Every structure is written in structure tokens, then in C-alpha cells.
């Protein structure tokens, strides 16, 4: 039972990281119908900046995170303005491919910059610090990631619900042409979407890295973030609550299979594919996900 509670807690913490990553995908998809395959490497870049700022430039955690968010916001907005803006009207194939190009570029850039001496992994608290209650360890970083995710969700909800720009984003998501006719600047909405997504990516990346318990910065972080794909498929591509629910569920699936696979019959590393198996199941049964609009077309 202790193991189960422990795993549930870890799953919740990891799930909240995945929820953040999934939010990044969904916000961009809702605004511009672009699936950003480079989202994982946004995380990587953001986390790398935070890591460098903390360990090489001796900045505190919070200024470092702000700096990392600044960098990913900048990359997102610049990419949107310089590349994607020229791609409007091109087939989705081309647009997805261009995000794959960005993915390669960012990953390689970070790999080269990291070189052979990895900086430490950034985390708000020491990796091993935890509160133990009844034999269950509640890691401080894990607790922080849950709290921060909830805060970000609330802030995002408030932004979308109560601000002019939030309204503009929601209107654009419903009907782009009608939104334009109402005087909404679509370019601002796109820039906002990529900016918000970039900012969230850095936070998600930092907590994902901290949660992995790896003391040094890991270049594979971006690939690990691809698990957000099952999360957004499960939640429904164009649903923001869906991204959060999907993220948490996938996090739980991942951690529970990891915790119980020690029994052996599923083989090594089963947890690395369990989210994808869930995803394939969802695609077979309910391709638009739990909360998505039913506009997915079958042939």
C-alpha cells in the first residue's frame, strides 16, 4: 500500500509536468492548428538556459527561470514570425516538417553547447529533500511541480476567461475568419500562443528535469517530453482541460508501470511504451480524445 501511495504521488507529480508540456502543444494547436514537433526541444533549450544561468553564472533559481522563459518565448515568437508566418496556406505536411527542422536545430545547438561537461540539473530544492509521512516520501520538487502546475492552470484560465487577449485567442480558436472580421489581429494571437507555450515549456522542462532525479543536465530531456503526445491525444488535441487531465493520467500510467514492472513479466523498460500503448488504444476507440471536438475525420 505504501508503494501504491508513493507511486500515485510520483505519478501525480510527473503527470503535472506532462500536463504543462501538453498545454504547450494544445495552446499552439488551438490558435493556429499547428502541431509543434519542436515543443520537446523548447523544453530542452529553456532548461539548458536555466541550468547554465544557475550553475555557470551563479544566478538564483527564480531569475534563472525567468531568463530561460525569456529565451524560449523569444525563440517561439521569432520562429512564428520569421518562418511560420510565411507558411500560412501551405499544406499541414510542410508546416509539421518545418517544426521538425526546428527540432533538429535546437537539439543539436544544445548538444554542441553542452559538449562534454554537462551543467547540473536545475531544481528549486535539493533533489533528495523530501517530507516523509507514514513511510511515503513527498519530494519537495515534486510538491512544487504540482503546486506550480495548478497555479499556471488557474492563471491561464483567468487569462483566457477575463482578459481581452484571452478573449481574442478563444475567438480565433472558434472561427479565425469571424475573429478577423471582428477586428482581432490574428498575428498577435499567434505570437501570444507561441510566447505562452514557450514560457510554459521552460517551467515544464525544469520540473521534468528535477523530477527525473538526474543530478546533471540531460540532452535527452526533449525526447522524454514527447510523452506529451499521448497526453494530448488522450485529452483531445484542442482541449485545454483535456491537456491537463491527459497529462496527469499519462504521468500516472508511466509511473505505475515503472513501479510494478520490477515483477518482471513485462520486460525491461515497459514504462517507456505504456503511454504510447494507451494512446494507440485511444486512437482506436475514441480518436478525438476525452474532451476534444469530434471533428477528426476517418476515411
Amino acid at each position, binding site marked *: 500500500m505504501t508503494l501504491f501511495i508513493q507511486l500515485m504521488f510520483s505519478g501525480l507529480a510527473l503527470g503535472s509536468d506532462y500536463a504543462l508540456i501538453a498545454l504547450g502543444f494544445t495552446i499552439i494547436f488551438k490558435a493556429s492548428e499547428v*502541431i509543434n*514537433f519542436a515543443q520537446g526541444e523548447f523544453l530542452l533549450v529553456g532548461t539548458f538556459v536555466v541550468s547554465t544561468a544557475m550553475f555557470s553564472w551563479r544566478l538564483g533559481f527564480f531569475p534563472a527561470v525567468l531568463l530561460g522563459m525569456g529565451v524560449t518565448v523569444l525563440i517561439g515568437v521569432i520562429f512564428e514570425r520569421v*518562418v511560420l508566418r*510565411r*507558411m500560412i496556406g*501551405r*499544406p*499541414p*505536411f*510542410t508546416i*509539421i*516538417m*518545418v517544426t*521538425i*527542422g*526546428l*527540432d*533538429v*536545430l*535546437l*537539439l*543539436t*545547438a544544445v*548538444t*554542441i553547447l553542452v*559538449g*562534454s561537461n554537462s551543467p547540473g540539473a536545475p531544481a528549486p530544492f535539493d533533489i533528495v529533500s523530501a517530507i516523509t509521512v507514514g513511510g511515503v516520501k513527498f519530494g519537495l520538487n515534486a510538491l512544487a511541480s504540482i503546486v506550480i502546475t495548478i497555479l499556471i492552470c488557474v492563471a491561464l484560465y483567468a487569462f483566457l476567461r477575463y482578459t481581452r487577449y484571452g478573449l481574442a485567442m478563444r475567438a480565433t480558436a472558434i472561427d479565425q475568419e469571424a475573429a478577423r472580421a471582428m477586428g482581432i489581429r490574428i498575428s498577435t494571437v499567434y505570437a501570444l500562443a507561441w510566447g505562452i507555450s514557450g514560457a510554459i515549456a521552460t517551467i515544464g522542462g525544469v520540473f521534468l528535469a528535477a523530477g527525473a532525479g538526474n543530478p546533471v543536465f540531460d540532452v535527452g530531456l526533449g*525526447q522524454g517530453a*514527447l510523452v506529451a*503526445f*499521448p497526453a494530448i*491525444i488522450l485529452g483531445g488535441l484542442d482541449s485545454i482541460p483535456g491537456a491537463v487531465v491527459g497529462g496527469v493520467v499519462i504521468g500516472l500510467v508511466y509511473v505505475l508501470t515503472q513501479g510494478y514492472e520490477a515483477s518482471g513479466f513485462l*520486460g*525491461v*523498460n*515497459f514504462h*517507456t*511504451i505504456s503511454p*504510447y*500503448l494507451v*494512446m*494507440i488504444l485511444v*486512437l*482506436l476507440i475514441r*480518436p478525438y480524445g476525452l474532451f476534444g471536438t469530434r471533428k*477528426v*475525420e*476517418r*476515411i
Partner: protein
Amino acid sequence: MSAPGPVGSSAPVAALLGLPRSSRSRALALVGAILLALIFLFGGDGWVSILDFTMVAAIAALGLNVLSGYAGQISLGIAFFMGIGAYTAAWLGGSPPQLPGDPAGLGLSFVIWLPASGIVAAFIGALIGPTALRLKGFYLGIVTLALVFIGQYLFINLRVITGGQQGRFNFPAPTIGDFSFASPNPIFGVQLTTNQCFFLPLLPLLALVAVFIANIARSRPGRAWQAVRDNETAAAIMGINLFEAKIGAFVLSSFLAGTAGALDASLSGIATPGTWSLLLSIQFIAAILIGGVASVWGSILGAAFVFAIPTALNTFSLLPQNASSTGISSGDLSAIFYGLLIIVFLLFEPAGIIGLARRIRTANQRIETRRKGGETTTATTTAVASSEREPQLDVERMDLTRRADAPQ
């Protein structure tokens, strides 16, 4: 069918084989063939090895181009199918286990394991296809992404066949009778290196695949793929069965990937699960995007660009070595290049290197036409003048030019 140029008895055969028809492309093909022969004979083993791997990669790139270039479906799964092919070949052709822990092998012949590796990959493609392709859009991309991870899991856990995490070594060599293409052997009294021997079956194999793809692209299924790519609704209205067309492309693509995977593993003699990673899939995507989507030559050039250049840089240490030990590896350097090139090509020339070549050819033709036009008819010059104002009229201009040139 008013194509200019000498019409000999070989013309229909050449056209059927998809051989270049214009004299300029023929000259280019000849230069390419001479270059290949020179590298083969005098290039030294390092270059021949690079050539071998590039040809294997070109077969896989052709496979991906069928699915992504011609049929317009996004796939990240080519590495998975290559892995399937490689381990099928290893299982069928590998030597039977000597020690208890050795991976299984049936020791069958080259003529069995090579097609079988393609067929098994194609069969798995046909099993997965219906799930992945029923959904419109980028879902195939996400499902095939999942496939790569599932493949990694399977390749680590199916130890009997794959050798587990450490991989397996006893990959079968292509042999016909007693002659092995994977060891130094004399042919007609000329001593050849291993890589030179391997080259001998690879070149005709690649040529076969290339001609096959070039032809199928211009036949009914190929036209159907391109119609599906360009507009699914319109294709369906014209009576194309979307599902059949997509599955066909997916299965053929998986077949070629499986064959290429088997050849790749046979050539390198070792495969670890890490070989068949997402990175490999992305490299192939880069190859066809940079070389040219929906183009046979584009696939080959792209494979050379993405796979040959970094190996060449490595083998011959062409990179400037830094004084400090933190030099950039050739893989990283080329990844930066192809990452950038994907974006630049998609922005400015979505048809890749082949598109660039076409542009240069058109520009050349324009210059030539202008020069000739000054001397001959005025009809040509006016056509050129109008085409310069409106580049969309290119096709019409070329027609006019040809008619104007014909009486000469």
C-alpha cells in the same frame, strides 16, 4: 510526345526504364556513372564504404519518399521498419547459436533473407496501417512516433532474436553459392576489398528500386498517391479509394525500409537497438526534404547529403581540429546544417535540391531561348518577354519555344 532529341531504337526502352531523355541529363548521368566507377576503382576502401552505406540509405529514403513524398503522409516510423528488417535478416540468415546465450539464427541464404526482411516489414506495415491511416492528417506521424519507441522496447526485450541491449553481431553476409559479398574476394582475377564486393550487389539493387519507384510513380497507383496527397476530397471524387492508396504506399514504404535495414545491418555487421532510433527517422525525413520530395533522384541525393557527408568528414578527419578537445563532432555539424536546410528549403524551395536543379535548368533554357530568339522568330521573343513578366506561364512558353525550334 513532341520531345526533341534523337529518336533511336533504344528510346522506348530508355523511357520505360525511366532513363533520362534529354541529352543534358544523359550527359549528367554519364558523368555520375564515371564518378562512381572512379571512386569504386581508385577511391580507396574508405570512400567505397561510404558509397555502400549511402546506397543502402538511398533505398530507405526511396521508401520514405513513396509514403511521404508521393502519398503525402507524415511518418516518423522508418527507423522501426528498418529495425524489423534488420532483425528478420539476422534471425533468418544468422548463424545458428553456438553458445547457450547466443541469439537465434537459421542460417538461410541471402536470396531468402533479403526479400523476407522486406516482406516481414511490409506485413507489419499492413497490420498497423489500418489503425494509423484511418485518421486524416498528422495522426500517422504520431502513431509512427509511438512505433519507434515500441520498436526500441521490442528490440531490447526480444533477446532471442535481437541479442538485447548489447545488440547482435553475427549478421548474415550476402552470399551466392560460395561467393561472399562481405569478405575480400577476387573477381575475374582482380582482388576486391570487402566494401568493393558489397558494392556489386548494392548498385543493381538500388538501380532496380529507383527504376521501380520512378515507374510506379507514373502508373495508376503512383498517380493515385499524388492525387491523395494533393487533395483527398478531389481524389475520392475521382474514384480513388483513399484507404487503399494510403495502405499501398505504407506497405511498399515499409517493404523498402525493411530491405534497407537488412542491408544496413549486414553491411555494418552489428545492430544495437539504439541504431533504430527516432534520430534515424528524422535523418531520413531530412534526406527527402533536402533532396526533393516525390523525386527518385531527390531521395538519392538527399541520402548522400545527410548520410555520406558526416561519415566522409569523420573518416578523413576533414574537420578543423580545435586546440581544445571540445571540437564539434561531424554528426552535430551536419545536423545543424540539415536542420537549417529543412527550414530554408521548405521556405524557399519545397522541391529540395532537385527543385533547385530544375530552376537552374529553366533559367538556362530561358537564356538559351533568348539568345536563339534574337536570331530566329519573333514569336519566341514575345513569348519569353511575356513569361518574364508572368512566371506562371512557364509551361506555355516552353511549348511555344519548342514549336518555334522544330523547323530547324
